[in-house]
């Protein structure tokens, strides 16, 4: 049981079962860890902006750095017209980052290693970007599927290919985050299992591996949050400034 590498991804309910019109809305360990990461983000931002020192304290520095990091990313990839979407992208980035990082703590649960959660996040981005595109450009937004300078004979084929490539956005966005987190945590657990089963004699090599993998996983946890946010910016850019 303890050696099973997939055991860590099990979702179980905490407290009483709540049924609302056939929907199971029980409070699970996934919801618990989402709440924990949300509270962590809120407290970081609350305590970071409380004192407003001219020479920032450590916590204020972290807050300001995360702000400028996201603001710079939006400015570079989506232009100044996307500035009004800063709250959304900042929330998305911080939520994914904290869920990944909280998952790196021992005995915790990685929320982002479940595809339903990453897919919902990606679907929100996808639907939101599509709606923004149609609101901003009207039916002209459909020109996104018709690249310029294509012969008329090829158009039916190209349009289908473009639509498939557009629809693949939420899938690639969600699968990337989910697969990276799940693969990394499974690997950590497998190497941890090797340490126990090989014992005091042969367990040192897998122990070294799992230490190295932990470092790599922290890097991946940050990178995936970054990639998620930057791709959202790129999709926003496509919707706001229509040109291919």
């Amino acid at each position, binding site marked *: 049981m303890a050696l099973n590498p997939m055991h860590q991804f099990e979702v179980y309910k905490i407290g009483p079962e709540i049924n609302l019109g056939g929907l199971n809305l029980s409070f699970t360990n996934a919801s618990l860890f989402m709440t924990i990461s949300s509270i962590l983000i809120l407290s970081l931002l609350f305590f970071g902006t409380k004192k407003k020192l001219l020479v920032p304290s450590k916590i204020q520095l972290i807050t300001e750095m995360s702000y400028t990091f996201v603001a710079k990313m939006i400015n570079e990839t989506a232009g100044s017209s996307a500035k009004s979407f800063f709250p959304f992208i900042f929330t998305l980035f911080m939520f994914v980052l904290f869920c990944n990082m909280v998952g790196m703590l021992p005995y915790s649960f990685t929320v982002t290693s479940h595809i339903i959660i990453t897919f919902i996040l990606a679907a929100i981005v996808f639907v939101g970007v599509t709606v923004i595109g149609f609101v901003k450009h009207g039916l002209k937004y459909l020109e996104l599927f018709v690249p310029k300078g294509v012969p008329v004979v090829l158009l039916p084929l190209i349009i289908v290919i473009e639509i498939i*490539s557009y629809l*693949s956005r939420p899938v690639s966005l969600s699968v990337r985050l989910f697969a990276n987190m799940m693969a990394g945590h499974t690997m950590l657990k497998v190497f941890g299992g090797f340490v126990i089963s090989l014992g005091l004699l042969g367990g040192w090599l897998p122990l070294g591996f799992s230490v190295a993998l932990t470092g790599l996983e922290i890097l991946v946890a940050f*990178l995936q949050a970054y990639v998620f946010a930057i791709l959202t910016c790129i999709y926003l850019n496509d919707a706001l400034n229509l040109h291919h």
Partner: protein
Amino acid sequence: MKNLREISTRLEIARKNIKKPQKKNNSSNAASIGKALKISTELVASVVVGSTIGFILDNGFDTKPLLTICFFFMGVAAGILNVFRSAKRMNKKF
């Protein structure tokens, strides 16, 4: 003479300092890993989406294997297009 020599050594130090940060930018490992992960999933996702659309249409029109095969290849084309585009976007940045 002494002054000139001082200036030349200072210039050398200054030139070295200019070169250093550029090297750092080129070998930013983390960003490269991010790019690699991004491109690989993009290729796979389009193929999956294309085949799924084909499968659903097949069930609707009762043309069992035909549309799945067609849309699989279109998915491959879309995947390559996606990879091509994001590679182009990366080139633009630098």
